[in-house]
């Protein structure tokens, strides 16, 4: 038997497999295909203060082993989320990580305040890959100072109760320094990686294909970037739990990210190809861990960083 359980801050999960924010909607849609209690947690679509229509269509383009999306955080807003979506998840006995997104530092804090008193939440994921309307639309996650301030505000508002997972963008020159900044500001864990800024040109219209022009690249194409990001950050901050994601579509992919340093794995785009992917991945991961002699997921976390033994060196 493999002990699959994992922790992020003071939150405990029976499995390291999570949905990825924005890739499971509110959870209801997947319930026909998987038992939500069997996975680590449902990470909800990033919720903002107000309801939002998101970006114009087309919102996606498939690319080799990947896809580019520009959804633009369509959602019902925090109040509707708390009165409808969250209670449903709780009623299903699913563990829930709520992802929040804002356009100002203040908005993040406001969201955190509303979550504070909501029952049934295991952790808060703070999606800082959003344009900061107060600073020329520069994405928070690309600005070390703004990243820190967002997390600082959320930390202060939440107090010590709920673990905070800061979700970072790979589109930066120095990921490690951004990671250190948000950890200093009070993040208990890091989610790596959000999508990679991309574009597809439509050869019929000969213009950018997506309504939002640019979008985020996800899926197996970006897995090597995710592995690098996780490895780098785990090397620099070995004690900070990492929720790894980016192109995980099989147990072998999940194990690759775990060996690089992830304590949990979010499955995003793979669920579009197969809504039960997360369960298949979980089963494959168990098999791969046991073949390698691991008795727990925890043993494999960051295993690729172990020092080289003399015998290997010769």
């Amino acid at each position, binding site marked *: 038997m493999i002990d699959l359980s994992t922790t992020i801050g003071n939150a405990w999960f029976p499995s390291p497999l999570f949905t990825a924010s*924005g*890739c*499971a*909607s509110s959870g*209801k*849609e*997947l*319930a*026909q*295909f998987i038992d939500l209690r069997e996975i680590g947690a449902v990470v909800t*679509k990033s919720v903002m203060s*107000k*309801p*939002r*229509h*998101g*970006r*114009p*269509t*087309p*919102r*996606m383009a*498939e690319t*080799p*082993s*990947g*896809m580019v*999306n520009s*959804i633009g955080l*369509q959602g019902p*807003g925090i109040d509707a989320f708390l009165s409808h979506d969250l209670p*449903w998840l709780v009623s*299903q006995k699913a563990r829930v990580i709520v992802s929040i997104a804002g356009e100002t530092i203040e908005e993040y804090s406001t969201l955190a305040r509303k979550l504070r008193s909501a029952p049934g939440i295991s952790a808060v994921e703070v999606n800082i890959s959003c344009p900061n309307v107060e600073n020329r639309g520069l994405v928070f996650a690309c600005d070390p100072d703004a990243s820190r301030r967002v997390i600082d505000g959320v930390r202060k508002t939440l107090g010590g109760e709920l673990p905070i997972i800061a979700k970072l963008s790979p589109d930066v020159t120095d990921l490690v320094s951004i990671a250190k900044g948000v950890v200093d500001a009070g993040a208990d864990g890091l989610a790596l990686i959000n999508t990679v800024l991309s574009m597809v040109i439509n050869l019929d219209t000969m213009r950018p294909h997506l*309504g939002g022009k640019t979008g985020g690249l996800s*899926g*197996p194409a970006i897995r090597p970037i995710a592995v690098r990001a996780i490895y780098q950050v785990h090397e620099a901050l070995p004690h900070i739990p990492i929720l790894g994601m980016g192109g995980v*579509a099989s147990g072998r992919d999940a194990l690759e990210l775990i060996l690089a340093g992830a304590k949990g794995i979010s499955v995003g*785009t*793979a*669920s*579009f*190809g*197969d*809504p*039960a992917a997360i369960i298949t991945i979980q089963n494959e991961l168990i098999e791969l861990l046991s073949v390698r002699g691991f008795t727990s997921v925890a043993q494999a976390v960051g295993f690729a960083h172990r020092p080289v033994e003399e015998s290997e060196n010769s």
Partner: protein
Amino acid sequence: MTNINKSSERLIATVVSNKRVGQYHQILLNVGQMVNGCKPGNFVAIKVGGDNAKMILRRAFAISRVSHSGPYGGSMELIVAPFGQGSKWLCAQIEGATIDLIAPLGTAFGIPTEPVRALLVGGGYGSAPLFGLAEVLKNRGCRVDMYLGASTGGKIYAPMEGKRSVNVLKIYTEDGSMGERGRVTEPIPGLIADGLVDVIYSCGPMPMLRAISHIVAGSDVVHQCAVEESMACGVGICMTCVLPVADSEGNVSMKRSCIDGPVMDGSQVMWDLVGKIPEAHA
């Protein structure tokens, strides 16, 4: 639990046959019991490209019709246009090949409880689900007229057997190579003016659906249309397939065409806002 995707399941189906019909492929899949849950308007999401494919998303196809008892048990028919690499791959699958599919997905055409005069309008492969629908309507005692249109004759899908359930079948092509020359939408205003139609069921390109919606606007005719938006997941989890839909109070929201559609009330779709975003929420 919820009702979303209710009775949808993933299945490895076998190709029973694959025939070329005009510019389309008529593909018959052995899906067993799954047919019991399939209704006209529902669609199927198919994994394309095989095991090592660089294509990671399923492709959506309307279920043309299902047969409950065949030599192989329940089967499902698709009418597929070889368009890009995914649909071409599907069209290249031969008898005996296995297909990974999820079905039934999405909403179905609403069936009236009373016998009504129904006009079914199909554009291109959009006629596929209309023949199954015609059968159901006919069994309910409806009068069923079907108007099919396409740019050219090779893109008209109208199988012999399908015509049984239809009172009148008219074909329009833009190049005049089959049926009458012109657009399938042209005769509709006349039919409505003459009071010959209670409900229009439509399936085809978005501009056709939009044109029909504009035609019926202001009349009493109900318009149920099957929309076609680009879909990444087909099961409601990605939010790519949305279009602006008004509720009865006129509030517009971006609805997912995979679970709130593909069949929608044409009068509620905000056609002029498709591809744009409505005013910000108040």
